């Protein structure tokens, strides 16, 4: 009996401790680890979140980088980090679904405790401004007459761009050739220099090239504010919505109420008018997927990417 009482007391004490932690979270600087190099979409979004976070919580948010193996280096180490809510990490879809699916990368999709998904960059088909393709229909017609001849540049194999190309081929019933590059920049340069006929990219990348590029279609639910004249795939009759989704995760052992609190802060950031404007100007599309909706959101995405993975022939282990 005595033992039980002690145990109960201990559990109670632990409970209050973590509650206290959550209440004044954050009470010190938060380290925000970006699993990629500085200068990418993840970094830019983090840089935009940074000042709003400080304004809302009064605590600094310190952006750090831990790049390697397309993010896998950092994600495989995340659960070994301090689980107190002061170490948070950017996560990306489809990376955290496709990477463990294709090979053993040191973590499983379920190992990653996502707290909030806050934005995505829709897939977009880009062509150089003097391209023969004025509309998506031009491109599809050409691809149907010349199977395999249309070359799409994109960033990496088994990436969001690769998935988009595979889904596009299936929906439009065409055969095209995907040319992987080592990043968004060289892939875009290949389009600008007409080394390839077209490219799969993101709205964020397309926005930087201004009138040098023509965007044929965007894989968003509705037209993207920064590209008001570009139709969505849906409008053109292809049910394709997707891109690279970005969220924030914490080490798995982080108490749930801290996760909840973090999710609340991130949600507030996502509703900050100045933040919204800057993100939209940059070509990002904001989504609000708070902590309690994450499992649902992930389940949906996993199903989507599993289908794409089947098309692409990624081994399911």
């Amino acid at each position, binding site marked *: 009996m005595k033992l039980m009482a002690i145990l109960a007391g201990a559990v109670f004490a632990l409970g209050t401790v973590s509650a206290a932690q959550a209440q004044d979270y954050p009470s010190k600087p938060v380290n925000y680890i970006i699993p990629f*190099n*500085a*200068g*990418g979409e993840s*970094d*830019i979004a983090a*840089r*935009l979140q*940074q*000042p709003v976070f400080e304004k809302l919580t009064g605590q600094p948010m310190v*952006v*750090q*980088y*831990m*790049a*390697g*193996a*397309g993010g*896998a*280096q950092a994600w*495989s*180490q995340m659960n070994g980090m301090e689980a107190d809510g002061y170490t948070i990490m950017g996560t990306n879809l489809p990376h955290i679904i496709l990477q463990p699916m*294709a*090979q*053993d*990368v*040191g973590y499983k999709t379920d190992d990653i405790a996502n707290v909030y998904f806050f934005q995505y960059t829709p897939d977009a088909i880009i062509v150089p401004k003097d391209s023969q393709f004025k509309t998506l229909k031009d491109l599809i017609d050409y691809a149907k007459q010349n199977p*395999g*001849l*249309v*070359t799409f540049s994109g960033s*990496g*194999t*088994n990436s969001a761009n690769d998935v988009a190309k595979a889904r596009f081929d299936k929906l439009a019933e065409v055969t095209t*050739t995907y*040319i*992987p*590059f*080592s*990043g968004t*920049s*060289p892939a*875009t*340069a*290949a389009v*600008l*220099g*007409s*080394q*390839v006929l077209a490219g799969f990219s993101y709205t964020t990348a397309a*926005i*930087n*090239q*201004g*009138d*040098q590029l023509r965007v044929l279609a965007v894989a968003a639910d509705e037209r993207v504010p920064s590209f008001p004249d570009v139709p969505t795939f849906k409008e053109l009759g292809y049910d394709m919505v997707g891109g690279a989704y970005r969220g924030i995760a914490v080490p798995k052992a982080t108490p749930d109420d801290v996760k909840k609190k973090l999710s609340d802060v991130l949600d507030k950031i996502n509703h900050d008018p100045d933040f919204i404007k*800057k993100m939209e*100007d*940059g070509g990002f599309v904001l989504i609000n997927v708070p902590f309690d909706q994450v499992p649902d959101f992930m389940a949906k995405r996993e199903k989507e990417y599993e289908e794409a993975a089947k098309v692409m022939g990624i081994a399911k282990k």
Partner: protein
Amino acid sequence: MDKLVYLAEALTPLNLLLAFVGVLAGIVIGALPGLSATMAVAVLVPFTFTMEPASGLIVLGAIYTGAIYGGSYSAILVNTPGTPSAIATTFDGFPMAKRGDGALAVSLSTLASVFGGLVGALMLMFLAPPLARVALAFGPPEYFWLAVFGLTLISALSVGNLMKGLIGACFGLLLSMVGVAVIGADVRFTFGSHMLLGGIDIVAGLIGLYCIPVLIDLVATRDPHLKVEGAQTGFRLGEALSISWREKFNLLRSSIIGTLVGILPGAGGSVASLVSYSEARRASRHPERYGTGEPGGIIATESANNATVGGGFIPTLVLGIPGTPPDAVILGALLVQGIKIGPALFSAQSPIVYTFIFGLIIGTLIMLPVGLLVGRYAYKSIIAIPKAALVPTIAFMTVIGSFAIHNNLSDSAVMLGLGAIGWVLNRAGFAPSPIVLGLVLGQIAEQGYVQSYLIGNAQHNVLGMFFGRPISLVIVAFALLTLFYPYIAKAIGAARARRSRTDIVVESRNGTPS
């Protein structure tokens, strides 16, 4: 000269101070292997948000320039390139330092860096839009041939034993393939280790292959690290100036090569300096002296790598495509500040752009006095520190430097492993440079090759992809020329017969030149 208006804007006391501090911080960070220009720039980005956009850009540009230049210190003084851009600086810089000419080498590197930086910045100011189109004309086959061109340098670096050089290069190329492949996503040669999934980082490889063998031999003997008897520790600026004047064509050619290669996204400073080194050696009247402490080698690499700073900004500012990783960070900083980037930047936001370019020029000029002073101090302290303290200090740098690349200790382990392998290979006569060349150029060569093949295959014209493009053919011609130039030169020399016989100089990067 309507652009001169912006010079006045760049010349405010605050901006001058910022440029000074930026250059100084950049030099220090660049001189430490593993702490890169990208890191320095990324750390500073949040601070620039509180500044005027132009001031923020000036400090970022200054740090970047300083860091690329700072990489030459460690290359010259401890045989470890501080940044990959300074790989070729070790070829002649360290032999010079070993024989007591370290101060001269640092002065030469400073002059060349300033000159190269200015050429790059001026080309950015006056020729950016047309040059940006050059970047776009470079497709996968051109990148492939450019990497092959870089690899032809092996024949020059392994005089006396070409086979060992070629084997080393193959080993380096295989090292570059470790990890998840960009094309095909195969997991290659990781032997089940998660540590190697991200591949072997070039910087970790550099530190390991160049620095660890030096340290190993340093602990084993009583000899001092650098020879000091009779060494002049002054600036030796006059001597450096006269050598630079003698090498003026080399200086100009290397700066232009540096700018042009810098424009190509993904090629960067390491390729630029290797290519210009190779060209300088070919054009030199004494190619056999390269690799044994020839001032021309330092001039070629250092002017080329600083010229890539200006060159890299050309696609960044004109096309919105970052030429180098630090450019990507700066581009991100612009975006966060709410500046619209892309082709419109050059026309619509010209005040900021031109103020920035003038800032870059000012930063480069400030590098001259700052660099000479810091360099002299660095040289003196390397000589002054007792060996028992120097060895662990450099060892500490190798550990933190390799750790700091990705904040990951497995890079340190890879660095040390490669260092031990490199030392063993070195004892068997396999020099580190061909291995490093393979490691640096492997990814560019492989991606260029496979992409060219895929595109050619889609267009049913694979041969045309590789051999039917004018720029490719020019690069191939240069590669062949470099490869066979020693034989051609020999033939010419034999025909003349009167030329005095030159001694064969064996590449001996760790020994004193014979």
